[in-house]
Structure formats: C-alpha cells, structure tokens
C-alpha cells in the first residue's frame, strides 16, 4: 500500500540549545600581729549585672578578675603572717616536738593556700563563662573548631558528608591523600548485563 502524495518527514536530531594564664599570688603584707579575716571566694559577690553589650561584658570580666586578684592577695597576706609567726617561733629555743608540729602546720597552710587559690581560679573562670555573650561563645567555638581542623589537616584527612575519609591536602598521594585539585565523585555507570551502578572517581576540573 502506498502513502499517497503526502510525505511524512522524519525528525532529524539537532544540536543542543542548549570559622589564664595562672596568676602568682603576691601583695603587700599586713602589719605584724594583724590577722585579716577572709572567707572563701564567693563568685556571687562578683556576679555581674546583666549586660547586653559585649564591651560591658568584657569590663565585667576585668572587674571580676581584679576582685579575684584582691582576694588571692588577702588570702596570701593572712597566711604569710601566720607563716612568719611560725618561722619566728621556730627560731627560738623551744622543744623539738613543738618545732615539728609547727613545721607540719606550715606545710598544711601552704597546701591550703594552693588549694584555695586553685578553687578560686576555677570559680572565676566559671563566672566568666556565664558572662560571655552569645557572640563571644560562638567566636570561641569557632576558634576551637579551627584548632581541631588544623589538627586534623595536619594528618591530611577530612571526612566528607558520607563519612568517608577525603584527603584534600594533595601532599602525598601515596599516603592515602588526593593530589591537589582532585576530588572524589560518585558517578553513574552502566555495568555488565546493562545494570546500573555507581563508582567513585578521582576527578579534577580542567
């Protein structure tokens, strides 16, 4: 059978459109014989009033640190006085057993100073933590995060979103890393028997 006079054209494909330090207690001594009274470091006394501005927060922290230093000074002064008195007593002729007790007491006082100083420092740091503004916390986390990444990069490895190790330093291909500029890409492939699969390729933009 014929198609008649009309012809149907076939389509032809075209192109495409185509991220502290410790302090050493020091200070003036109290006059001999004076026994200053002091209590434990009380952070609530140094509690800053709520502030919104980060500058004010910084000032609060500075004030807390100054008060902490003053507290350590008074603590040290009091114990220094007692130690001085003990030393004087040790210099006099008294019984050796009493001398021993005095030395023990001196050691005890020194340990006490060390412990109280450490406790006070911890409390101060905790208080400072509370007074950090949200921005300062984020900044600190960012810094700490960077330190972590730096430390990771020293090893030359990062993890991609799949959790697989992806080395992007490109320093040592033989060490398991990728050459510079290369990345791993998962691409579709046609496998044997026309089955669809995926393979990880080492790719680089050219």
């Amino acid at each position, binding site marked *: 059978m014929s198609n008649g006079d009309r012809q149907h054209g076939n389509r032809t494909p075209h*192109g495409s459109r*185509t991220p502290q330090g410790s302090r050493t207690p020091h200070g003036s001594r109290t006059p001999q014989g004076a026994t200053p009274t002091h209590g434990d470091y009380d952070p609530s006394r140094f509690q800053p009033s709520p502030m919104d501005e980060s500058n004010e927060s910084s000032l609060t922290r500075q004030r807390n640190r100054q008060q902490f230093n003053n507290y350590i000074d008074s603590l040290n002064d009091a114990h220094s006085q007692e130690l001085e008195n003990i030393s004087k007593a040790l210099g006099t002729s008294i019984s050796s057993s009493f001398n021993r007790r005095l030395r023990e007491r001196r050691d005890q006082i020194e340990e006490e100073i060390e412990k109280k100083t450490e406790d006070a420092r911890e409390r101060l740091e905790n208080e400072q933590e509370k007074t950090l503004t949200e921005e300062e916390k984020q900044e600190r986390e960012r810094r700490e995060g960077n330190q972590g990444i730096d430390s990771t990069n020293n090893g030359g490895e990062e993890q991609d979103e799949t959790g697989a190790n992806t080395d992007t330093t490109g320093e040592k291909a033989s060490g398991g890393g990728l050459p510079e500029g290369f990345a791993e890409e998962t*691409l*579709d492939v*046609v496998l044997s028997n*026309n089955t669809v699969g995926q*393979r990880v390729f080492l790719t680089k933009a050219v």
Partner: protein
Amino acid sequence: MAILRAGPWGNWINLHANPVTDFTTVPLVYPVNCAKNNWPNQNWGALYIKNDYYFEEVSGLASLGEDVSIESDISYISFIFCYQATQGFEINFNWAFTGAGASSNFPSLFWSYQTKNGASDSFFNTPADSGTETIMLPASTFGQVEMYVGADSFGEDVIVTASLS
C-alpha cells in the same frame, strides 16, 4: 567493561545536556537511558512527539509500556531516545490503528538507530493495523534511536496508538 554515564539528556552531537522539563516547544535533546533500566535519579524515558498535521506538534515523556495516542485523518507519533548499553538488548515498538478511518488508512512505520561505535540500522514499512516491531539495539557507549508510525486516511479519523516496551 563499565561505561560512564552520559546525559542525563543529550543527542548525537551533544552527549551531556540538562534534562528538559518544559515541553511547550519540542526539545532537541532526548533522555539518555541505560538500556531498558532506570538510572538512580532518572527513570527510563523517551521523548514522544505527536503531530496531527493541522496543529503544532505536541511532545512529552513516555515511559516503557506507556501508550501515546492521537486522533486525526493525518497524524504521526514518534519516539526518540538515547541509550548506553554494555550488551545488546531488544526493544519493542508497538502500534495500532483504530477508528473509522482505519479501513482507508495509508500507514507508514519507520525506525532507525546509530551508535558512536559505528553501528546503525533502519527500517521502513507500510504496517498492518497493529503489531510490534522488535528492534535489536547493539551495545554502545552512546546510541540514538528514533521510531515513527503515521496514518493518512484522507478524511476519516484514525486513532494511532503507540508504545515502547
């Protein structure tokens, strides 16, 4: 040996084109399939074009087994797709002419393919009122296939229905 995926759409001279989603104009690129299988992110598809001679061409995507039909006294339906295959495979081109004009119809049927590996084939026939043409497509890194079935009844409408399977 595995073949790296081309596409997702493409044509003979552009193996890597973006998928088409707007069919208001007939695209000039076609889905690139993995034989008769789906890709992880793209189902098997062929571009269909149907033309009733009096109006503009209408195009869209057809999946395997999906019927495409048109009714007119002069009309055609064509399918175009690209493929990749590590082994040759068969695809069926099904058609049927029905309606009042079927008895006075002058039908035509055509298919062709060509591959980047150098294989090509084509076929033309004046088909029966219904049938299936099985085409053996060879393994290729990239091939393009086109099929066509048309009716011409000089007055009375013919319903042309076609599909791939």
